[in-house]
């Protein structure tokens, strides 16, 4: 059949183009033509994604408003329009208040460590289906962002910037399998690496010293890179949930739950200027119980009121 031969040719041509692109990118490894394709597409599509994100916000607001309308109609007809108006405003202020609270948290953490930050909103979230965890945010080169800057949120480290377009930036999150962060246990100087494994709620912590003492509940902060890039020092990362005993291995490893909920990010900020002095452990959330070496039987005796 002539038709099926033509179809096979189409497929062959498409596959050939794809393989050529793979080869091109492997050869250039991040710069050259594929990088400029990425930048062009970021400049073209990101504004559309930005408005789609705005749309999703207003759909959420509209949904809650619509439910209010229906009950109001049943009770008092006259109050209907006024009610809609008020509820709508309320829905908006809730959203604004939530955003303000997140900003406050950001400012607090930035103030404590005296980082200079640029706040940003998350536009698009990589779905993680290909095991890579990346998000794009709405600040870019025109806001002074460059690659390899730390990205933090109100509760801790989020990731680092990996590619910057005019007004958007791609951020690689902690959960990304390619992510590796130098880290240490809070209050000690035990060094190690935090790496992602493609799951948003869990990180791997590998400690260099196999004899290091580490236990469940230990808090992990960034060690800090040379010149604060890509990672500034002293940013909280997460809490140890379990320690893997691995006798015979050269390193010890533990599982860490990140402080930041990586799958539902909204407001983040990019650290453009690292602090002049290492904040050490001052940014860690307050301990639930007094800092004793022996873990108490009831873990959360006094829930800490601050930190969300």
């Amino acid at each position: 059949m002539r038709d099926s031969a033509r179809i096979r040719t189409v497929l062959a041509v498409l596959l050939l183009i794809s393989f050529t692109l793979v080869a091109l990118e492997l050869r250039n490894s991040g710069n050259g033509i594929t990088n400029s394709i990425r930048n062009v597409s970021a400049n073209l599509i990101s504004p559309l994604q930005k408005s789609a994100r705005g749309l999703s916000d207003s759909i959420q607001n509209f949904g809650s408003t619509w439910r209010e309308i229906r009950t109001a109609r049943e009770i008092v007809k006259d109050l209907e329009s006024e009610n809609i108006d008020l509820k709508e405003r309320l829905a908006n202020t809730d959203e604004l208040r939530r955003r303000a609270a997140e900003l406050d948290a950001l400012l607090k953490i930035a103030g404590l460590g005296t980082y200079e930050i640029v706040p940003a909103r998350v536009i698009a979230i990589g779905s993680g289906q290909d095991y890579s965890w990346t998000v794009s945010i709405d600040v870019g080169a025109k806001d002074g962002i460059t690659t390899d800057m730390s990205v933090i949120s109100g509760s801790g480290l989020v990731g680092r910037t990996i590619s910057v377009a005019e007004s958007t930036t791609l951020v690689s999150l902690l959960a990304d399998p390619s992510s590796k962060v130098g880290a240490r246990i809070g209050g000690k100087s035990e060094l190690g690496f935090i790496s992602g494994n493609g799951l948003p709620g869990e990180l791997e912590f590998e400690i260099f010293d196999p004899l290091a003492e580490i236990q469940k509940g230990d808090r992990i902060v960034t060690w800090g890179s040379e010149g604060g890039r890509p990672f500034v020092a002293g940013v909280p990362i997460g809490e140890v949930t379990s320690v893997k005993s691995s006798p015979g291995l050269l390193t010890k490893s533990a599982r860490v739950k990140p402080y930041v909920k990586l799958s539902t990010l909204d407001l983040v900020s990019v650290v453009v200027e690292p602090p002049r002095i290492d904040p050490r452990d001052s940014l860690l959330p307050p301990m639930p119980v007094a800092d004793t070496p022996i873990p108490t039987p009831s873990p959360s005796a006094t829930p800490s009121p601050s930190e969300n």
Partner: protein
Amino acid sequence: MNIYKYLALIVTVLIGIIFQPTLLARLSLPGATPDLVLVIVCCWAITKGPAVGAIAGFIAGLLLDVVPPGNNLIGVASIFLALIGYAIGIVGSGPSRSIVRPLLISGIGATTFFLLRTIWALISGSDIALYNFSVNFLTQGIYAAALAVFVYPGIAFLDRRLGPVSRSDELRMQ
């Protein structure tokens, strides 16, 4: 296929590319994120056969890798999706009144795509944890089938609507 249908194909794929990471990823449903882009490719392959399926898959894969937040090797997703579009066009295209077939095919397509990407991640040497694999695999298929309920009629409608009118336009131009 005529020029209008190719335009419609590109626009629908773009809609998927724009809304998947901004809207669907934000829903934070249990398990995987619904793969709207893949469902759109499947539905084009079902309505128009293997050649269009492969082209839709190629375009979608390219955009998935190029447009932020995509950050993979450019070309890998387009190889996978072109093959999936082609295979679905061979196996699953043809006239059908029932919605069940596109639903099933989209589910199978989505799980296949997920499987291929997992294998690729393992081959290319990234350290990934696979505890959630079975949950993600299942939810991926279920969400894709659910999306196909809306996407398939839409694309079938576009196909019918753009069909005869533009073909006569094409003849006039020649």
